[in-house]
């Protein structure tokens, strides 16, 4: 039973890892960022490239991936997203286009493969990421056999959630973000630089996706399409949790993770997937705004 609970917890933490950044960009800013999965992918490729060119390991790649994806997020916000605030469906289409561009840039090695130049670490193939020795295999915690890497992901997710909570609820900029969420015009009238705060929020959300990418690279496959299914799962979590609610996102990730883990153990993985979707449908029928939500803009 402890094993099943741990698997559920682990699945939930992976969901939360991806959903956390989305909860911020979608929940707080009202941007459906379809490129979020590609941010995860860029984070994973940063790990691959960091090992090849900088000889950095998985752990050292975490801050690096955060910086790389945050800068990329900042660029996307400045160039595209900024022009599309309050046009929900347009952000969806535009960021979907951005997602395709990033995917193809990685697959075609920024176009260089067309003229015969190959960059090791990029390209259409599967990439290999080395995991530190102490994260391979399993360890015993309180008599329960724990998969070391999954345990590590849970710890990183807790840390990231805590930092996000600190920023959002205990810092001046977090207060500004929350003010913008409630009412952007009023916030601007009170002297908040909405453009600047939005840009930073988007960059932070993208940076979180980059960290998620580093963690994924250690036990999933790194290839250009890897982010696409993740963004779907991420949106499920955010929608169930309720827009703009950090607590809701955490609760939804935990709930869906446990539902997945328990159903997969009792029946099978295909049914678990169906059970998760069924639960999401039930939640959005009964509570269209998600489990925990309050009135936003």
């Amino acid at each position: 039973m402890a094993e099943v609970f741990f698997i559920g917890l682990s699945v939930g933490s992976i969901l939360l890892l991806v959903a956390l950044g989305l909860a911020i960009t979608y929940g707080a800013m009202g941007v459906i960022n379809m490129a979020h999965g590609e941010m995860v992918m860029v984070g994973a490729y940063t790990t691959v490239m960091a090992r090849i060119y900088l000889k950095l390991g998985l752990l050292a790649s975490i801050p690096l991936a955060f910086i790389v994806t945050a800068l990329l997020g900042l660029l996307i916000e400045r160039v595209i997203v900024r022009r599309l605030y309050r046009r929900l469906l347009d952000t969806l289409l535009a960021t979907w286009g951005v997602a395709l561009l990033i995917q193809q840039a990685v697959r075609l090695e920024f176009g260089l493969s067309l003229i015969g130049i190959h960059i090791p670490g990029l390209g259409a193939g599967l990439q290999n990421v080395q995991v530190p020795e102490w994260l391979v295999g399993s360890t015993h915690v309180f008599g329960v056999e724990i998969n070391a890497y999954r345990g590590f992901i849970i710890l990183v997710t807790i840390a990231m959630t805590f930092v996000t909570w600190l920023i959002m609820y205990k810092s001046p900029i977090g207060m500004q973000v929350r003010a913008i969420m409630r009412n952007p015009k009023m916030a601007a009238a009170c002297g908040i630089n909405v453009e600047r705060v939005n840009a930073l929020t988007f960059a932070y959300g993208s940076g979180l996706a980059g960290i998620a990418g580093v963690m994924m690279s250690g036990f999933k496959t790194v290839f250009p399409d890897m982010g696409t299914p993740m963004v779907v799962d991420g949106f499920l979590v955010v929608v169930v949790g309720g827009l703009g609610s950090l607590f809701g996102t955490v609760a939804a990730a935990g709930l869906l993770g446990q539902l997945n883990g328990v159903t997969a153990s009792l029946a099978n993985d295909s049914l678990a997937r169906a059970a998760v979707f069924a639960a999401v449908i039930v939640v959005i029928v009964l509570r269209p705004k998600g489990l925990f939500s309050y009135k936003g803009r």
Partner: protein
Amino acid sequence: MSVNRRSFLKTTAGGVAAVAGAPLFSRTALAADTIDVGVLFSLTGGLSIIEKSLSDATLMAIAEINASGGVMGKQIHAISEDGASDPKTYNEKASKLVIQDKLATVFGSYTSASRKAVLPVFEKRNAMYFYPTYYEGYECSRNVVYTGAVPNQQLSNFIPWIIKTLGKKTFFIVGSNYIYPREMAKVCKILIEKNGAKWVADEYLELGDSEWGSMVNKIKNSGADVVLSNVVGDSVVAFYREFKNQGFTHDKLPICATVTSEIEIAAMGAEYAAGSYTSFPYFQAIDTPENKSFIERYRTYVKDPHAVTHHALCSAYFQVFLWKQAVEKAKATTADAIREGVRGQEFLSPGGAVKIEPENLHTWLTPRIAQWQPDGQGKIVDAYPAPIFPLPYSAYGETESNLFCTPKGVDPSKLKG
């Protein structure tokens, strides 16, 4: 300018005639010195990683044949199309090659989905399709030459070998959730029971899903002493990693796989696979002068000194030579001539001798078992002494003395059992 109806009709009719006439002219002009064939693989999309290598191997074989004088004194001219990893695009491109370009032969497809999508085109227009991938069987088309393994060629020595040599008795069968792993599992169960062992589970994960936590936990609690994996694609990497991370070792509970190849091993990191087994008719590690030379020529051809060769790639290469021999035997390039000419053709491929079975147009191949080494290469631990008979309906009781698939097509009365 006014356009009246009559002049409009006239111009249009003239235009249509010109369009219809143009390909005819170009064909007669080309036919004098070249033989055209189609090459249809995905050069873009999710499957392009592997299908690009199949396309390269096909084009390399064509280049080699052309360099040594061509077929019946004529050069082969390849018309390449991109299936774009999408069965619908495959169907459109196949129609283009067969109907517009009027080709009698096309080499192509990696997935069964894409083969099924183009099959009606080839059967209706009577053209030949050369298909290089291992697949699930249960097909008997007179318009397809199948040069990859069918389930009995990957499993009929693998399962007895696991039971007798490794001494394993209890199987956990796991696969991706689609037709190929499910058909493979049927053949597995027949062979496991025939050899006096048992299976405790037959489980599937969605294609492309990589959350293996629950599945590996089930394996742990199942009491199985061997895992038979029909998992495909990028899920393979996450599976082997989860397996090791939950504390398994391949010496106690080995994964015996039918699809895990050199490509997935390199992506997951060899340390996760070292000690596990795979069954294929071809491995890059086959230690013969033919294979060494083949790998070298392929790497030169694609300009990549680390390029990996694998089973479907080897078949994509040698099937072009089988086609060449068929054309030379029949002294014609029509589909009917090739179909009759290719029956019984033999060739020494990089993976050893191969032969097209006259009855069902599938290929005699040599099953081999490799154990993965810490350097990411397979070490061949067992090989059949000779190529074995391809039985596409072995899951339904087909045997060498009771064939379901013959030149007349599949016998429906035998199939219902």
